[in-house]
């Protein structure tokens, strides 16, 4: 006697298998959608911009002639911007994370701070631009300088760095800390010699990804009023400057079609910088990840 009727089972199975296949196809489509968009975007930018991407493009200032236009001022300006943003945001961000994870007691005030840091991460970048314009540019009188823009950008990415650093610090096993205390180390010694070295890959990865967001961000710079037409390089923290996304936006708005191509070449430069930064992040992660 047979307890299971094969045909009935198979009838049900086919239905379920098809159902499964349909969903699989849908999820696959969802994945390819993003990839195809990226591919089309890259193809368009590369075909448009590659002809203008020469050594001259990197060493010339902007020009009204498309074939003489260069990105030097914007590239160097963006590097200056990063030279301000990186130390300011990493020092403040990691400091906050250490305080919240290692020192802060679990009470209402600290919960409130934690909650607001997450909120801050969701504030639109243009709002940070307004903040920077009011406080750094006007109240503190820094003008449209590298320093003012750098501080604004630091505020923008600070929450991201704090959250990344918090998570990296939290991932350090508690036994390590206890072992350190057991050896007679103070809290400070434990943090410097045990927690931070173990957390550094996570912190650096998060920080570099946050910095690559800062280098491509335009809205705060537009609000601050960073100039786009200039023929000099910044020579100090209070110097005027322009940045890659501003220059690209300016070119993309030009009436002449050649400038759309120049803009594409600019995007290629920006993407190269971004990819470089991201690969450094991946390199650090892979190199230091498997420690425990």
């Amino acid at each position: 006697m047979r307890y299971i009727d094969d045909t009935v089972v198979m009838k049900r199975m086919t239905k379920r298998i098809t159902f499964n296949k349909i969903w699989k196809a849908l999820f696959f489509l969802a994945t390819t959608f993003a990839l195809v968009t990226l591919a089309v975007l890259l193809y368009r930018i590369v075909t448009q911009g590659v002809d203008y991407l020469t050594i001259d493009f990197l060493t010339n200032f902007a020009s009204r002639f498309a074939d003489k236009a260069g990105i030097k001022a914007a590239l160097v300006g963006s590097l200056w911007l990063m030279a301000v943003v990186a130390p300011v945001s990493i020092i403040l961000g990691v400091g906050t994370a250490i305080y919240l994870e290692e020192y802060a007691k679990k009470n209402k005030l600290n919960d409130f701070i934690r909650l607001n840091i997450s909120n801050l991460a969701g504030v639109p970048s243009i709002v940070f631009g307004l903040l920077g314009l009011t406080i750094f540019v006007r109240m503190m009188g820094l003008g449209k300088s590298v320093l003012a823009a750098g501080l604004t950008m630091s505020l923008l990415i600070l929450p991201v760095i704090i959250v990344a650093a918090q998570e990296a610090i939290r991932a350090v096993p508690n036994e390590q800390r206890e072992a350190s205390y057991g050896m007679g180390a103070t809290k400070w010694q434990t943090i410097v010699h045990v927690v931070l070295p173990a957390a550094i890959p996570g912190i650096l990865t998060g920080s570099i990804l946050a910095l690559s967001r800062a280098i491509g961000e335009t809205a705060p710079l537009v609000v601050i009023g960073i100039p786009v037409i200039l023929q000099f390089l910044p020579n100090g923290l209070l110097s005027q400057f322009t940045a890659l996304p501003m220059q690209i936006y300016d070119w993309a708005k030009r009436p002449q079609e050649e400038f759309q191509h120049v803009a594409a070449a600019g995007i290629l430069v920006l993407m190269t910088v971004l990819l470089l930064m991201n690969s450094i992040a991946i390199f650090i992660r892979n190199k230091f990840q498997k420690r425990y």
Partner: protein
Amino acid sequence: MKKWKYLTMTAVMGSALMLGACGSDSAQNGNNAETNAPASSGQDAADEKLQGAVAGDGSSTVAPIIEAVVEEYAGTQPDVKVSVGVSGTGGGFEKFIAGETDFSNASRPVKDEEKAKLDEAGIAFTQLPIAYDGLSVVVNPENDWAKDLTVEQLKKIWVEDGKEKKWSDIDPSWPDEKIVYYSPGTDSGTYDYFDEVILDGADLAKSATLSEDDNMLVQGVAGDKNAIGFFGYAYYLENKDKLSVVKVNGVEPTNETIEAGEYSPLSRELYTYVKNSAMKDNAAAYDFVKFTLEHAGDMAEAVGYVSLPEEKYTEALKTLEGLK
């Protein structure tokens, strides 16, 4: 432990190197600017080398002219640091009022409320004309009905009257299709000028797509048979093959009709507003504005605008001299 120290060291040295690289770059700056400078403006190279900083902001319509001037100026005075933002006429005036800029470019005259705020801030200023622009009204090339519009028709098309408009509402012989609008953004002087001259300050159709990027408007009109839009003459010139320009009161915008003032009321002067105190106290700012007025005509023609008659520049230079 060692890795951690090694990493910190690399980070510190890396940033030091980066700063160092920036520093040496700026040292070469002067040389490069000189070698890059086109020779065309070399004749009147100033005898004395000036130093200083000049800051400006303002209209995106004026920006291509100013960019050309700044490029040429860097060839004659490489040590004067001119920086110009492109925040739109309104955005530029806002920074001018805040005292952040020495000059502000505008594609319309200063508004009364801006004047009041400038007075309040104690900023005395002077208006200097630098070129002509013919604000061009454009339609899709497939549009074979709206070839020549009167100012009244334009007003009827663009004014917001609470209901959706079709082409047939303007003229019964035109198609029964919805009008699609493309207009520059509200921060631009082009919007303000059109609003004032054509609509007498009334609201512009709410369904209009507004964009600060004029190329978006070009694409919008080029892609829709029932679209109408307006923007600076330079954008029309560059996209002649994709768009067809509308005659206003029977006159087509061309270099000649704009300069002669026949393309009325949509031909307009482009200005730069200078801060009087900056012209007096900052030799570099004075020199740059003087250079601008001397070369604005040629530069305007080079980037797709129309030069003012020579007298206007001479007159403006005289005004400027009075400020020194």
